[in-house]
């Protein structure tokens, strides 16, 4: 599977991840899925509510009602839910076994690592059809630099 990202999507994901630190944040990735070309185009992100108030620093959960709303709105806008992004506060951008057992196929999972409030490593993953593992996918043209203003804002919860 090949992943194409519109400009600004990664920056949007990073900003959301930093603003939510130390909790995990999550959101939908919207765009289109072309099965013949085996390509996912990500055109934008849509923040979702992390319902796991009990353990939000290491878990996220998007309720089905929110998924339905997002899917309806995406359909109305002529797009699809093509993936999910979430943050790993103070942990690497690698999928956990928890991520694996709860993953959906044909979706791109973007994980952004947030260390002490600053977004760092960002990786894309797609579930294998046998559900046994994730394949890492190249996220094209990813530029790790961020604007200083956002880093500034994220320091408010550092200690």
């Amino acid at each position, binding site marked *: 599977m090949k992943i194409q990202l519109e400009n600004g999507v990664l920056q949007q994901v990073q900003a959301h991840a930093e603003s939510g630190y*130390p*909790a*995990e944040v*999550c959101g939908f990735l919207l765009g289109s*899925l072309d*099965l013949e070309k085996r390509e996912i185009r990500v055109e934008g992100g849509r923040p*979702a509510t*992390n319902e*796991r*108030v*009990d*353990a*939000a*620093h*290491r*878990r*996220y*959960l*998007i*309720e*089905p009602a929110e*998924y*339905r709303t997002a*899917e309806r709105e995406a359909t109305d806008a002529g797009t*699809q*839910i*093509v993936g*999910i992004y*979430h943050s*790993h*506060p103070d*942990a690497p951008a690698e*999928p*956990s*076994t*928890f*991520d694996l057992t*709860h*993953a*959906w*196929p*044909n*979706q791109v*999972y973007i994980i952004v690592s947030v260390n002490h409030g600053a977004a760092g490593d960002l990786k894309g993953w797609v579930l294998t*059809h*046998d*559900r046994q593992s994730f394949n890492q996918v190249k996220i094209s043209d990813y530029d790790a630099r961020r604007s200083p203003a956002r880093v500034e804002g994220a*320091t*408010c*919860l*550092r*200690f």
Partner: protein
Amino acid sequence: MPEVLVPTPLRPYTGNQARLRVEGETVGQALDALVRRHPDLRSHLYGEDGALRNFVNVYVGEEDIRYRQQEDTVVAPDEEISIVPSVAGGIEALAEAPPIEFSNEEIRRYSRHLIMPEVTLGGQRKLKAANVLLVGAGGLGSPLALYLAAAGVGRVGIVDHDVVDESNLQRQVLHGTRDVGRPKLESARDRLHDVNPHIVVETHETRLTSANALELLADYDIVADGTDNFPTRYLVNDACVLLGKPNVYASIFRFDGQASVFGAPGGPCYRCLYPEPPPPGLVPSCAEGGVLGVLPGLLGTIQATETIKLILGIGEPLVGRLLLIDALGLTFRTLQLRKDPSCPVCGENPTLQELIDYEQFCGIGTVQDGRISSDIEEITVLELRAAMDRGDDVTLLDVRERHEWQICHIDGGQLLPLSELQARMHELDTSRTYYVHCKSGVRSAEAIERLQEAGFTRLKNVAGGIAAWAEQIDPTMPTY
């Protein structure tokens, strides 16, 4: 035939069709027909046990079948069945740790949990993997520690630096008579290991301070605050917010208690409820005002309940709610709490980014020094004894309350409780000399200030009060 709505991730397995008509009178039959037609769907919808995966939600119309008859829910031919993902994931904090296993003995021990569908072996594993820090091994910490240990919380940490005193035993059920004089942590460890030898008890014999709090709390998932003073309560709150850890809070006074869960993401914190501490002295501590011994039992078990719910991820935690308990009327009230957007620690633009000096924040040390002003003369209990032995022409005035006087009093003293002082001041003689005492010297200083305002001049405060008398002059006197 009912129509099934397939979510985007699964459409590649249905030839990219979003809607399919399938045979079936129930949801189960319809899904079975769907999976038989498109076998690649099976592993994504059903687990190895043949049950729908827990992140697969099925709706008939607008209703989740969990709230109807699950897969036996009947569908009309014109109804729509939607497969709706709930999306979950996160850091596997526990994945790197060895898988959690239970011995046969543990299975027997936890059997009443394991048979509950809300707990099961999975929930018991969560409990065993959990790390909970209790701040204080006192009235609230006692039932908290006992029930968390009994429930099988794998690692229970306790911070305390106190020694068991006889006056603790009326409510601190973690400690026994034979523990008097022992550090509370030693007695707590022994008791908890007796309750449950399968857990780890971590003891931190220190005072929680701004210098050590972040490091100490960082090692735990949940903090339960059983402190009895405002500086530590604000310290625990701020540290929990900064670290993003839930703070299961309770406090008690006399017959009243309150409880809440602070510091949960999106929920309010203690400062949203009480932005400023009360002036020192306004809210008496349990040592000054007393507490019904069973009350911390009531509130501590509520804290244990909330902690266990948070670990299991079940029910509605007391996030954004403040529970108020009045033991005399036995009433329970719940107030809704809102997160304060201008909260200095958890608000939108937090001004507090590190821990501060909480003693100073709560005004401790400053007002206390000012209250016993320099124009109050003091005498020691030794000087008082000498004056009484000489037969000096003075009156010893005891300003404690009547029920305290009944416990113990110094022979030859005159009782005039502080609460009655204003009304009965005329019984005193401005020309006489009064040595005034209370339990420890604070109330007597207040009495002297009031008497000075009324024109009395010959007054001395007995330093240390009757407690000092019992310690230095009359060791047979009971203390309280």
